[in-house]
């Protein structure tokens, strides 16, 4: 099968028509496409092999991190239609209603609606050879599906744009009934209110996109607003067509892979990525027309064509994207949209609700009741797709594809898919509740870039540390440096992204395939895996021994997998890695706490004192829960604290052979008092531990390499990072 597809694709690249029947435009750049294809074919072949392996004799896949990663890396064309049916629940729907699709076609249809459909059918993918003929082509099928759907869903009936979606579904499934049920899943479960007459869903999501852009790329937002361009002009088609007819076909299919499996969040990720990744181009456009033109070209350029990298960027660039946050944004934006609508057309019922707009706590409550979830299935499953995942998975991260997930996505934990109970799951859930959870790194990078554009170098320079070796360089050089590092990161992700799940198979197949030496390859293909393994191993060593191998749901595995980390922290000056396991602060998102660090030195000569009064109220409730731990405190304060952290963060004695500077027991009550503590100290979430009866005491922590102040160290041996660059 894999071979067949490869053959098919490699042939098609020479043709004027691609493998889906789309004609190449006259200005199609065959050379750059071939360049991309030559690389992508390797990926496709590997994916095809992997998928065959995954599926084996089965027709279906379950849910879980491995499947998710596989899907993010693209479902091979031969499996795509079937997998969409499987993972979206369309097959179940279809099987539950045998003969239903056929029966719909015989029903009479409202003449106006019929006219709408009739007009749009010949206007669907005019550049596709299959959409030119009713008899031989797919136009007849397209009409059948659209008519059947109009009869099936009277509220939606038909909405322009649906023709493209149904068309693409037909191209992939090659089966009317399958296309119909996938269509039903999309329009009613995955994207409620998108295609209803008031289009509240689309209007809401356009606003959500705008507010995310405003937050993450304020310069773009300002720029666009300055020229009086509204976001509905830029993004309506993106959302209505789910990027079909917008992005290159292969890229659209990759997005839809994720859409069917993960839900509608991926659409927002794609939109944000498109905007953020093209910041420079957008800002360079200095006229109303140019900006609109720019938004059109960015959906067709080389970056968009290179679907593999594009999808990778979609999950990397859009960064942390908690569902709760999205739901909240949607709620707000929807209220705005409705208020405006009510203003214009008074008296119209406003009974439209996003399924995922349900009160978050409610959602959380329900999502925790996995069994219940399983039963109700349907819409809930779509909007808390965590519910589809296995028990452990769901328990330890409320938001399956945030940063956390990105790191999972990247890490090569192929052989290990069940997760131990995450010691910090409670906190993780709580932090997901935070209203303002966004990717600081991205924001920082974006603003940095913006600053360069605007030549606001001076304010930038202020941020730079004193003893840094880079501070002698020009600002531009620093910028370059940072970008370089970013690129470096990207490359790292790239390789892992492509190769992470290869190692074990590579070995088994070496007999049939000639193994090229590293010299021939000009790189060591296993290097990244080795690096990753080292990192994993290292991080695993932090795990408390009793947690290892402990599984929920009775899954057995010889190796424990890693807990999630909210980020990898680096020194802002020299970009040395400081920490790989940390937790982000619930409120102060540029703050992280951790117990295991690298390249850090604690400056005992400097002590910072922080009065704990502010915290007391907050902690009253927390402490209540922790009465037990508090009891034995007076005697062996140190020990009890350690015990407690066993519950929160894993403790390990094993630090031999690493760069960790082993914390010494903090000498309380000594040192000079400083009230001018860093902002980090004003809200040490982590210090919600026992023993904060008196003032909090902190020591400053410096980067070992360049001596930049990066964190404070508390008496509980927890590092509170506040001056770091994050990466994932």
């Amino acid at each position, binding site marked *: 099968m894999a071979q067949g597809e490869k053959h098919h694709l490699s042939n098609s690249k020479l043709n004027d028509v691609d493998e889906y029947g789309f004609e190449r435009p006259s200005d199609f750049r065959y050379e750059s496409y071939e360049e991309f294809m030559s690389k992508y074919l390797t990926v496709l072949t590997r994916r095809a092999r992997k998928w065959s392996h995954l599926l084996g004799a089965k027709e279906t896949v379950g849910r879980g991190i491995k499947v998710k990663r596989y899907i993010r890396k693209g479902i091979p064309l031969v499996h795509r239609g079937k997998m969409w049916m499987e993972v979206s629940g369309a097959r179940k729907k279809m099987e539950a209603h045998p003969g239903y699709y056929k029966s719909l076609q015989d029903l009479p249809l409202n003449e*106006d609606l019929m*006219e*709408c459909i009739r*007009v*749009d059918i*010949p*206007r*669907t*993918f*005019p*550049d596709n050879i299959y959409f*030119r003929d009713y008899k031989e082509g797919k136009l007849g099928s397209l009409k059948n599906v659209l008519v059947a759907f109009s009869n099936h869903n009277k509220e939606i009936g038909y*909405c*322009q*744009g649906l*023709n*493209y979606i149904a068309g693409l579904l037909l191209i992939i499934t090659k089966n009317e009934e399958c296309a119909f049920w996938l269509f039903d899943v999309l329009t009613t479960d995955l994207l409620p209110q998108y295609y*209803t*007459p*008031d*289009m509240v869903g689309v*209007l809401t999501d356009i606003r959500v996109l705008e507010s995310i852009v405003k937050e993450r790329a304020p310069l773009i937002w300002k720029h666009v607003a300055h*020229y*009086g361009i*509204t976001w*509905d*002009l830029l993004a*309506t*088609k993106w959302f*209505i*067509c789910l990027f079909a*007819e917008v992005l290159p076909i292969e890229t659209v299919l990759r997005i839809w892979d994720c859409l069917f499996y993960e839900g509608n969040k991926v659409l927002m990720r794609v939109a944000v990525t498109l905007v953020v990744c093209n910041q420079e181009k957008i800002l360079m456009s200095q*006229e*109303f*027309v140019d900006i*609109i033109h720019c938004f059109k070209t960015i959906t067709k350029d080389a970056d968009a064509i290179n679907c593999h990298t594009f999808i990778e960027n979609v999950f990397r660039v859009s960064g942390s994207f908690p569902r709760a946050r999205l739901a909240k944004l949607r709620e707000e934006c929807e209220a705005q949209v409705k208020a405006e*609508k009510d203003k*214009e057309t008074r008296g119209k019922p406003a009974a439209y609700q996003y399924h995922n707009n349900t009160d978050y706590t409610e959602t959380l409550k329900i999502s925790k009741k996995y069994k219940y979830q399983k039963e109700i299935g349907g819409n809930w499953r779509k909007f808390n797709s965590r519910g589809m995942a296995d028990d452990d998975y769901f328990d330890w991260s409320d938001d399956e594809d945030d940063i956390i997930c990105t790191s999972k996505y990247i890490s090569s934990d192929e052989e290990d898919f069940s997760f131990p109970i995450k010691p910090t799951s409670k906190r993780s859930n709580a932090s997901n509740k935070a209203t303002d959870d966004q990717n600081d790194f991205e924001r920082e990078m974006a603003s940095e870039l913006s600053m360069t554009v605007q030549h606001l170098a001076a304010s930038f320079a202020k941020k730079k540390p004193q003893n840094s070796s880079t501070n002698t360089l020009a600002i531009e050089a620093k910028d370059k440096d940072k970008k370089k590092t970013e690129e470096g990161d990207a490359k790292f992700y790239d390789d892992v992204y492509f190769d992470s799940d290869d190692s074990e198979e590579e070995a088994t197949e070496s007999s049939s395939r000639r193994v090229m030496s590293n010299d021939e390859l000009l790189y060591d293909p296993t290097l990244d895996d080795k690096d990753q393994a080292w990192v994993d191993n290292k991080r695993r060593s932090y795990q408390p021994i009793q947690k290892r191998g402990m599984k929920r749901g009775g899954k057995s595995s010889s190796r424990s997998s890693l807990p999630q980390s909210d980020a990898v922290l680096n020194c802002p000056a020299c970009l040395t890695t400081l920490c790989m396991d940390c937790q982000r602060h619930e409120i102060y998102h540029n703050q992280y706490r951790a117990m295991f660090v690298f390249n850090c030195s604690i400056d005992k000569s400097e002590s910072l004192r922080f009065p704990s009064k502010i915290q007391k109220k907050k902690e009253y409730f927390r402490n209540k829960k922790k009465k037990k731990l508090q009891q034995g405190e007076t005697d062996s304060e140190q020990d009890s604290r350690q015990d407690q952290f066993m519950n929160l963060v894993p403790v390990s004695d094993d630090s031999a052979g690493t760069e960790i500077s082993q914390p010494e027991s903090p000498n309380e009550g000594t040192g000079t008092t400083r009230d001018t503590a860093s902002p980090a100290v004003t809200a040490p979430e982590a210090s919600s531990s026992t023993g904060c009866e008196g003032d909090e005491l902190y020591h400053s922590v410096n980067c070992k390499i360049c001596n930049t102040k990066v964190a404070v160290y508390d008496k509980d041996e927890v590092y509170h990072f506040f001056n770091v660059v994050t990466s994932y």
Partner: protein
Amino acid sequence: MEDYKFLFKVVLIGNAGVGKTCLVRRFTQGLFPPGQGATIGVDFMIKTVEIEGEKIKLQIWDTAGQERFRSITQSYYRSAHALILVYDISSQPTFDCLPDWLREIEQYASCKVLRVLVGNKTDREDRELPTHVGEEFAHRHNMYFIETSAKEADNVEKLFIEIAKELTQDSKVGDLSPQDVSNVPLPPTRETRSEFPCCSRWMSSSSSAT
């Protein structure tokens, strides 16, 4: 910065499939693509024309025809200088919807907007609506009228050039200089329009508008 004397915003509305996008593409790009996909949301094109030696920039907004898209397209009527209401001469239903569209215009567009009724697809042999029907409708509703064929490039250039001429004239009379579209809340005044429902003028004048 491109040099131009006036900038006008022209919005095309009308039922789905009447040929709005084709009119715009014919005018701005000189193309009539054999297959034209349905417009989703709002599209935008620009063309600079020369009227009496002065450069006039036309910002042309192409909208999706389906009723439910009106919530998105309405906001574009408001600041329009001219509205082109298009129907398909071979499709009675597209003509029957015109009163609905007029209500939209009344509600959302400036009352002083230049309104043009366009019967498109004159190349079609299955005409359902004779020219005089459109003409009468336009006359009754105080609109300009013209029949076009985007396919044959018939009257398309003229349609836009006439609009540009009218708007330029009005701007000069009304002493408005809408150089910057974002600063033009109202289109130029059109006090004389009711006295000159110029449909006949447009229909009869030679097609060499430039």
